[in-house]
């Protein structure tokens, strides 16, 4: 969707719509680009500095595009007790990036989230909305490989 189309319904509305607007933009673009923020500032008649002030406060907002496969690693208590620290480390090693970064081929990005609320299945990772339960050091390789394969199935 075009940025304009996303922003238009919010024109002339109150400032309490800032967060929903930013969420809408991120949902469609994957992140908050500079131009989208300045567009938001025109729409809601707010300075961009204020918008950045709000956007950087919340964990949800990103200012850089994510990879094609966005991996959320749950770092809740239950996941921690069952070894999510190792899971995160293995992922970082496997993809050769740190949490919050995107791989050079723009395929994978890792994000650490507080708790996805699937504690019964800990440790959990969520890739593009799909949950992978009871992840272990050894199963991560397979999961990642599965996503790689899904891109070029012939190989």
């Amino acid at each position, binding site marked *: 969707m075009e940025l304009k189309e996303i922003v238009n319904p919010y024109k002339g509305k109150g400032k309490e719509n800032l967060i929903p607007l930013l969420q809408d933009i991120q949902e469609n673009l994957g992140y908050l680009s500079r131009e989208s923020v300045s567009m938001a500032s025109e729409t809601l008649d707010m300075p961009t500095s204020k918008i950045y002030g709000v956007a950087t406060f919340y*964990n*949800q907002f990103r200012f850089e595009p994510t990879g094609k496969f966005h991996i959320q690693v749950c770092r809740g208590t239950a996941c921690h007790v069952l070894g999510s620290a190792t899971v995160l480390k293995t992922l970082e090693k496997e993809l050769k990036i740190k949490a919050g970064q995107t791989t050079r081929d723009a395929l994978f990005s890792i994000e650490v989230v507080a708790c996805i609320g699937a504690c019964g299945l800990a440790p959990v990772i969520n890739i593009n909305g799909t949950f992978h339960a009871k992840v272990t050091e050894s199963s991560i390789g397979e999961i990642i490989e599965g996503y790689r394969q899904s891109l070029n199935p012939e190989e």
Partner: protein
Amino acid sequence: MSILQDLKPVLLSAINGQTLKPEQEKQFRILRREETNVPVIYIGAGTCGLGAGAGKTIDSAKQWLIDNEQKAEIVEVGCVGLCASEPLVDIQIPGFKRISFENVTSDKVEEILDSIFKLEVPNHNSLGQYEDTAGKTWENIPGINEHPFFAPQVRLVLKNCGLLNPVSIEEYIAGGGYRPFANLLETRKPSEMVEDVIKSGLRGRGGGGFLAGMKWKFAASETSDQKYLICNADEGDPGAFMDRAVIEGDPHRLLEGMAIAAYAIGATEAYIYIRAEYPLAIERLYAAIDQAIEYGLLGKNILGKGIDLNIKIKKGAGAFVCGEETALIHSIEGKRGMPKPRPPFPTSSGLFGKPTCINNVETLANIPGIFEKGSNWFSSIGTEKSKGTKVFALSGNIKRTGLVEIPMGTSMRDIIYNIAGGIPNKKKFKAVQIGGPSGGCLKEEDLDILVDYDSLIQAGAMMGSGGLVVMDEDTCMVDVARFFMDFIQRESCGKCIPCREGTRRMLEILDSITHRPAIDKENAALDRFKGVMQLEKLGKVIKDTSLCGLGKSAPNPVLSTLKQFREEYEEHIFNRHCPAGVCTELRTFEIDVDKCTGCTVCARKCPTEAIIGGKKTPHFILEDKCIGCGNCMDVCKFEAVHVKEVVKIK
């Protein structure tokens, strides 16, 4: 759908308390899923079910029906609570009781459906049968209520979860839903309703345990052109997922609770502030709100009584502090979610400066039950000062993880050993963490306490929102404390100094205890030694001087573990040793000279070149260079590398 269309007037008359004709009774029993005319396959498709593979189970079930030319209704239900056994599939064949199967991954669908449609029960995976459904009993299958996980539960809030279709208002109404609300509009004045809730003794389920009725009273007594009701579904506590399960499994119960609360306090606008991390719950809420509006139970001129209620959903943007009332209000207003000093309390000046009542999901979900059966009935459940039931999320090192609803006053030992089935892998129990980042830990000897708001505080923990994380002997309590401090430190909004700087400093101390510094400076050892004393002092200052609940409770996990597991801290500090082996940097390794063949693999894999030794001669580890990563132990094929036993200094 046409049948349901015809049903609408009947359902509406049921809401208004008219008695049903016999044929309508039968229809209602079918809607309540007590009996059925067609085979029904229920698949638990909450977030945890989907995570365990329920999506594929649904596909396989559909495929099976096509392949075998059978007709059956497939219903995606919410979570019944037994997360460890997901995907859960229930099957109800006409003339038989509803029967439940556990761990039904897609490969087992065929086998189970094959036999059940031949009216035989497969000899594994069955969990139990629902004895209150109509029809013949399956032989040799126990009732589901005899299952140790379900037997001690009293399900008020979770009554429909996992049993009924969550996005069917018809099923909810057939089960008596919205009847209390309609009845109240006819018969009770708002002020009487507030008194009813006070009398019931319902306390806020979000953590603090403030009397919900008192909050209503404060909001109701304000005069204003506009009042707001906010449902706090910003379940930020890591380790808690009861709100998600309630919304995913029974959204109408929450909506009815909100409708009643809004009427009692005189609010015409309501918000549900829900985490964006719960997409399924949000989707089901939207669907449920639309249905309720269609039935005239929300929106303008509710049930023709001239009252309005408009419910809006606000997605949280991921900030733990937004669970705090004033921060949550700021977030809805589109600002940074920072708390502000109270008073004025939100009940007098809240959202957009208007009187606002904020209740937790579970609190509101309790409301319909209270008005259905009366406040005396509700206050007969539970302990003297904590009434009703509480939903707990069980997770961590236990056999049956999941969601349970138990009466207040159940012993913690019962929860962990009977309901949750104890600790797996023959490990020993070490502690249970309750109340998330604001709560504390209970040790083995505290397990006999009867769980309610006050007893937990006495034992140094806190009810919180109800996340129970069980830890076995392989968990390091200092590491757990560090984990929580790391979380709080990141989530601190930064407005008040004690919380912002204090939590950071506490994390630094814990870091120095659990890590090995690259260069040990002159004072580092002394600082570590002072650490324990400093932690206590700092914790007290943060508690006394922070602005909001987050800061005031931030030191709890550290103070509580420090009190209960002091020897473990001392072991880390004085002996530089982690008894559980979790703090990897504190490990030191040694190589067994007799077993080492000198293959040099470990020396090559060592990231810091801490291993020396020539080919075919035993190797040695230089302790100064070793960072405790454990690579050498992992790669050694001869089991020559092992963690060095620490000689304890007492």
